[in-house]
């Protein structure tokens, strides 16, 4: 195989910079993505901490931090409407585009995918490096937009025009998005080529671990969904900078002034282009974590996953269908009401493979011998909590009930259950699962348990109140909920949600501490501490440059656990007998 020679080519001496900064090794890039995106998640979480204070105690100065901000943003330490909107837009953008996607795809995909298919590296190592070094400046540019005159983008992470055309901060947001999308596209192409061309001998498609399938489908989604948003962002940039009118209708009167642009554009065009990306994006956020959950469950149930093929076909179906449901975000946007019926039907169709996936995870437990270690706790918690997220999507995907629930806190509760108690929980579980592979050491169990229980309980206590508030009719994106009468009956939930968010922050401390501490002080682990079958456990921990000493040969499917008549209860893919 051609990649044999590639593997040995990496033996010349590398400088420290080549090894840890501008590295072309997929494992170093994966860890760079991992740490960067966790830091971005923390920043996004911090922004939310400020917003939550304002939501629970509107009009009171933000403790400790309030006076650090300029008088424009927070006069006397009290958050202004502009500042709240900027925090809201940046929280969403950072969490999704700088946090969860790079973590799920850039970090886990980069590190684990080549190992699981038995490849020495990604197909295009330099492009891989370029992807990270495009992502990081894009992310820093996004953060830097807070320093711009007028502040950061403040039109929501969805950036609906005409508001986004006339609001400050949006230009840097758009430039940064174009850079980030470019980075994602570089990664997606690399993953696709790697999965198709770099599989070890014997690794047929039906022997790929579910995680690889999930990354594969995700890359297809990124490749097809991001270019429309990139184009749409460039158009919005034109509207802002060159006063074109792709999204601006004629005869606008803004705060008493007639708008100078020529007009003739259509604001709904942006929404269609945006959601054409952003709905597949939801599955980009969810599929890789599902892949992680599948790996952890298979390992710790000591039996094959229930319905491996059903899971794979479901993922393919979800990927395909995700391009046909985007306008369920737009039922009341003013698009033709009969279009609503079409998107209602496609939305219900996409729930079928999603339910099938969850069913397979639950049925996988039947007949198992479940080991309750820390990664398994996270993977198991994913199932019911993600289910809440999925189920609360039903009344939102149904046209009639969406009339009432759209743009209320119910929506916020719904997608946070999906992305936070779903994706992020699974991504945290992945850290505990693969940490021994990354560093040859293990993270502490006691602190792991504290982190797990604290996180699950506080996350639920943040988001469940949002569902109640939404049922009560509370509108989202109001910087002061008490300024409107209809929010008052549910305002108490905001306080609970805020305290829970601060508690969640505290429960991350053991995780952050132990993550860095265990790199040097963790208990040393063997090559395959979980007694797993997939290929990443067949190379040293941490794997050297080039990964495998010699190209592995694959003899069987990914989850051959508890095969009758064998001495051990796992049969690695690489073992001939």
């Amino acid at each position: 195989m051609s990649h044999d020679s590639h593997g040995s080519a990496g033996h010349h001496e590398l400088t420290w910079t080549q090894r840890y900064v501008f590295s072309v090794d997929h494992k170093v890039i994966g860890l760079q993505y991992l740490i960067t995106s966790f830091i971005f998640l923390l920043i996004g979480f911090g922004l939310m901490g400020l917003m939550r204070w304002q939501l629970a105690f509107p009009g009171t100065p933000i403790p400790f931090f309030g006076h650090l901000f300029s008088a424009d943003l927070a006069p006397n330490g009290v958050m202004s409407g502009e500042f709240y909107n900027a925090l809201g837009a940046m929280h969403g953008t950072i969490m999704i585009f700088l946090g969860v996607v790079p973590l799920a795809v850039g970090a886990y995909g980069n590190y684990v995918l080549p190992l699981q298919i038995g490849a020495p590296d990604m197909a295009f190592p330099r492009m891989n490096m370029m992807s990270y070094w495009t992502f990081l400046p894009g992310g820093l540019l996004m953060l830097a937009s807070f320093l711009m005159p007028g502040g950061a983008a403040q039109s929501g992470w969805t950036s609906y025009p005409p508001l986004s055309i006339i609001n400050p901060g949006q230009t840097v947001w758009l430039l940064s998005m174009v850079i980030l999308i470019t980075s994602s596209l570089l990664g997606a192409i690399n993953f696709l080529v790697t999965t198709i061309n770099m599989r070890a001998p014997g690794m047929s498609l039906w022997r790929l671990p579910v995680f690889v399938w999930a990354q594969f489908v995700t890359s297809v989604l990124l490749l097809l969904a991001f270019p429309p948003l990139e184009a749409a962002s460039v158009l919005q940039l034109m509207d802002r900078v060159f006063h074109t009118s792709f999204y601006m209708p004629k005869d606008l009167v803004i705060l008493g002034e007639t708008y100078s642009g020529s007009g003739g554009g259509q604001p709904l065009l942006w929404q269609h282009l945006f959601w054409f990306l952003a709905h597949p994006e939801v599955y980009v956020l969810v599929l890789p974590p599902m892949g992680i959950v599948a790996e952890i469950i298979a390992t710790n149930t000591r039996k094959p996953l229930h319905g491996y093929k059903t899971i794979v076909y479901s993922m393919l179906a979800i990927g395909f269908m995700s391009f046909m449901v985007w306008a369920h975000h737009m039922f009341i946007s003013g698009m033709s009401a009969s279009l609503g019926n079409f998107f209602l039907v496609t939305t219900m169709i996409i729930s079928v493979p999603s339910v099938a996936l969850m069913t397979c995870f639950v049925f996988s437990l039947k007949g198992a011998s479940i080991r309750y270690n820390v990664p398994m706790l996270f993977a198991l918690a994913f199932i019911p909590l993600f289910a809440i997220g999925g189920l609360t999507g039903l009344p939102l995907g149904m046209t009639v009930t969406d009339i009432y629930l759209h743009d209320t806190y119910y929506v916020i509760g719904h997608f946070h259950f999906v992305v936070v108690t779903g994706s992020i929980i699974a991504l945290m579980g992945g850290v505990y699962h693969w940490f021994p592979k990354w560093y040859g050491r293990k993270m502490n169990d006691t602190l792991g348990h504290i982190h797990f229980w604290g996180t699950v309980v506080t996350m639920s206590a943040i988001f469940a109140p949002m569902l109640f508030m939404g049922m009560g009719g509370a509108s989202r994106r109001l910087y002061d909920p008490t300024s409107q009468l209809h929010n008052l009956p549910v305002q108490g939930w905001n306080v609970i949600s805020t305290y829970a968010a601060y508690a969640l922050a505290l429960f991350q401390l053991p995780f952050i501490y132990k993550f860095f501490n265990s790199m040097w002080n963790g208990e040393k682990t063997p090559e395959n501490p979980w007694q797993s079958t997939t290929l990443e456990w067949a190379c040293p921990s941490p794997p050297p440059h080039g990964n495998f000493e010699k190209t592995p040969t694959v003899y069987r499917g990914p989850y051959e656990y508890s095969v009758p008549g064998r001495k051990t209860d796992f049969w690695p893919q690489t073992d001939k007998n």
Partner: protein
Amino acid sequence: MGKYAWSLPVAASTYAGTIDFGIWLIHAAMLGIFTLWGAFFIYLLVKYRARPGVAAVREDHDDTPAHISIPDSFSKFPFAQMIYRNKGELKSLIPDAIILTFEVALIVFYAIPVWSNIKSTVPDTKDAVLIEIVAEQFAWNVHYAGPDGKLGPRKVALVHFSNPIGLDRNDPASADDVVMGNELRLPIDKNAVFELLSKDVIHSFFIPEFRMKQDAVPGLKIPMWVKPNRLGKFEITCAQLCGFAHAHMRADVHVTTQAEYDDWYKSRLATMPAAETASNPSEEF
């Protein structure tokens, strides 16, 4: 003041009850699905915990079909054979089938007919109050067509602080029109038909008690309707982020008897500027 409400607010329009029915039905189904699955899940977690001396048991699945014996009676039916061979796999689709049936029933018998009634059909304006809502940062302008049932024309050039929607008072159709800021009054048990517009950015017209929501998009004129059936004071809120003072974009809704409504309308009409004064828009336009 209770601060921990978790339920829907009072229903104050004819279709509010229909929408609530759907919300409660879906939530009942969700709760049922979650409880059943949750119970099964916990049972599995307890029953199949790792215990010394007890090994995991593999299931029959389609990767290892060879040792499954198929009853002879199936030999003539390849399709039945295939189903039997994959019965382990197919069993996991049963919950899917149940949920799918429920969803299809909801779509066919509930969602499509109700949605079409609320959003695609607008009642005849002859027996209805005709109102134009012109949203702007950060106010709701309410333009009543009046007894003639005709909305006076608006002109961008006439927009002024004293005439926020740019109503042309010289047009005969405007003679009985009333324009109010942040105040919507509706007679009870009578259809109200709206045309929803925006002057600047996207807003969303939301009255929680009416279960009524529609985005206002600049450049589009979007029809909507409601029939209030409960007296009282409610609130219009803007449900779409529209700028720094989005939280302050609200208006009062009063549902009154027809007689009260008529009295109020007459008193408001008396305060509207006459045609002559409005015919001289300020020079800056």
